């Protein structure tokens, strides 16, 4: 056997890819349990570094400067940005980084197609089909994720719809697939350019009409898309690590998307094609008015209550109010009140978003209750405090068939004896729908920033009994 470097290096690289693939799978598995989650990401990280180093070995120094430059350009800004971005902005960061992955897969597809044109090489039909499909999915994931990021980051106003939108989108999609089929028959540069332009457009068009509470599902779906795109382009590049890792993420992502959609009682097709958000009842259709309450009166209600349920939403995250809220809850607990946190499956911008923030503030797990478990308890709840949640407590989801959120399971906050809604202003929620809860007789509005409101409630509570509890 001849152990020269030319045959040794590729084998070392292949072995490293195999180890990386195993580390990824074990890493993801560990991330699915709270006890081992932190080890999981470190393990996956080791796999990534190993695979990257191994790749340097097999690329033989071709275009080394370009490769190192591109890696530096990709790593340094995202690393620094990811380190300093606020915890509340994490969902849109995930969307953005996912879009980059999709773009990278699309770029691989584009590069290979252009190379086939230049060299006149004739790839197998399987290779071509997977290159085209991977590029299509990757490009959709990239532009779609960027729109999702812009929406979550508040850079783009809610939704964009026009009559016949779904038919128009379908038409664009069919034309794009048609161009893709042409590429499989015969690769030509103008067709390649048109194909990628339209594929990016499909991602934009798909995401524009989606708004509000559906965004987590969309991000998860694009995450799965990117995984599939990576797997397909992995076949084109003949790198097993890409096929395995991409496919594992694709399948896991699809399952995660289904779990999320199920938690919202919406089929994935409904999320993508039903023009969610906006419309529905206008304020004029809802009887009653919004009744403001002062912090001192709200504190009295809390003082007299035995059981208080906190319903946090994205507004709590924005106001970074989780610490102050937990302070308030600790005071209430000292006074013998029963405290629970009710978490809607899609409260915030992603499933688990609220759990992460409450964990950060030090709230014990056993006080945090899921929707199905807490809903029957609202009837025996004296005061429910809604802080920064809106669409997930809107009774319209049960009563108004014309409402875009009709059918979404909600927290039955309206059944509590008293409801205090802490809210900055009178605007509608992320989905742009008026909230019938705010107009109910048992609901009072405490207009303030979440952190300030929680602090003033604490102060007022101390003022009632001089601070000490009983």
């Amino acid at each position, binding site marked *: 056997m001849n152990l020269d470097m030319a045959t040794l290096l590729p084998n070392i690289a292949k072995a490293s890819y195999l180890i990386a693939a195993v580390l990824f799978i074990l890493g*993801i598995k560990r991330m699915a349990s709270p006890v081992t989650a932190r080890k999981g990401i470190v393990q996956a990280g080791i796999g990534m570094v190993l695979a990257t180093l191994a790749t340097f070995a097999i690329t033989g120094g071709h275009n080394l400067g370009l490769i190192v430059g591109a890696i530096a350009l990709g790593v340094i800004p995202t690393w620094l940005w990811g380190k300093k971005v606020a915890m509340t902005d994490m969902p849109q960061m995930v969307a953005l980084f996912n879009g980059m992955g999709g773009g990278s897969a699309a770029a691989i597809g584009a590069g290979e197609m252009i190379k086939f044109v230049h060299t006149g090489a004739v790839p197998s039909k399987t290779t071509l089909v997977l290159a085209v499909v991977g590029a299509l999915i990757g490009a959709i994931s990239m532009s779609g994720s960027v729109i999702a990021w812009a929406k979550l980051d508040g850079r783009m106003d809610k939704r964009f719809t026009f009559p016949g939108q779904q038919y128009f989108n379908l038409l664009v999609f069919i034309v794009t697939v048609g161009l893709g089929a042409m590429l499989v028959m015969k690769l030509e540069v103008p067709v390649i350019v048109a194909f990628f332009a339209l594929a990016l457009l499909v991602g934009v068009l798909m995401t524009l009409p989606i708004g509000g509470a559906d965004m987590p599902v969309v991000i998860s779906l694009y995450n799965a898309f990117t995984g599939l795109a990576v797997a397909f382009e992995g076949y084109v590049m003949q790198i097993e690590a890409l096929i395995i890792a991409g496919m594992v993420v694709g399948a896991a992502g699809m399952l995660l998307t289904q779990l999320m959609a199920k938690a919202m009682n919406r089929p994935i097709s409904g999320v993508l094609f039903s023009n969610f958000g906006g419309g529905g009842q206008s304020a004029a259709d809802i009887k009653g008015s919004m009744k403001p309450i002062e912090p001192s009166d709200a504190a009295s209600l809390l003082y007299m209550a035995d059981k208080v349920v906190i319903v946090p939403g994205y507004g709590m995250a924005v106001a970074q109010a989780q610490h102050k809220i937990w302070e308030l809850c600790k005071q209430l607990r000292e006074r013998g009140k029963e405290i629970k946190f009710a978490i809607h499956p899609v409260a915030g911008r992603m499933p688990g978003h609220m759990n992460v923030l409450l964990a950060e503030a030090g709230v014990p797990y056993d006080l945090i209750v899921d929707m199905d478990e807490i809903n029957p308890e609202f009837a025996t709840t004296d005061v429910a405090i809604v802080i920064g949640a809106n669409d997930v407590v809107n009774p319209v989801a049960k009563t108004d068939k014309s409402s875009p959120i009709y059918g979404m399971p909600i927290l039955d906050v309206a059944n509590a004896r008293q409801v205090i809604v802490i809210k900055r202003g009178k605007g509608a929620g992320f989905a742009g729908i008026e909230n019938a809860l705010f107009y109910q007789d048992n609901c009072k509005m405490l207009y303030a920033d979440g952190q300030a409101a929680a602090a003033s409630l604490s102060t007022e509570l101390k003022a009632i009994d001089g601070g000490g509890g009983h």
Partner: protein
Amino acid sequence: MIDGFLALYIFLLAAFTGHEIISRVPVILHTPLMSGSNFVHGIVLVGAMVALAHADTPIGKVIGFIGVALGAGNAAGGYVVTERMLDMFKSSKGK
């Protein structure tokens, strides 16, 4: 060379694996897990590196460069964000 059926086997087995390893995940970990799997498909970086290394035309180099930069961004950003999310689980347990 990985060809037709062998590739199909890899695709299918990997898909089953992905489905199996997260089938019993608590809601609390949905976001970190999505973020973590987002990091894992950053492996696309490796494919982009190989593509760029083999590029010999200016347009090929430009596309390859973009691919590597985006893939590296996916991997680096995905890692940092996931690690920060999971770090909070640790700090809450300490209290």
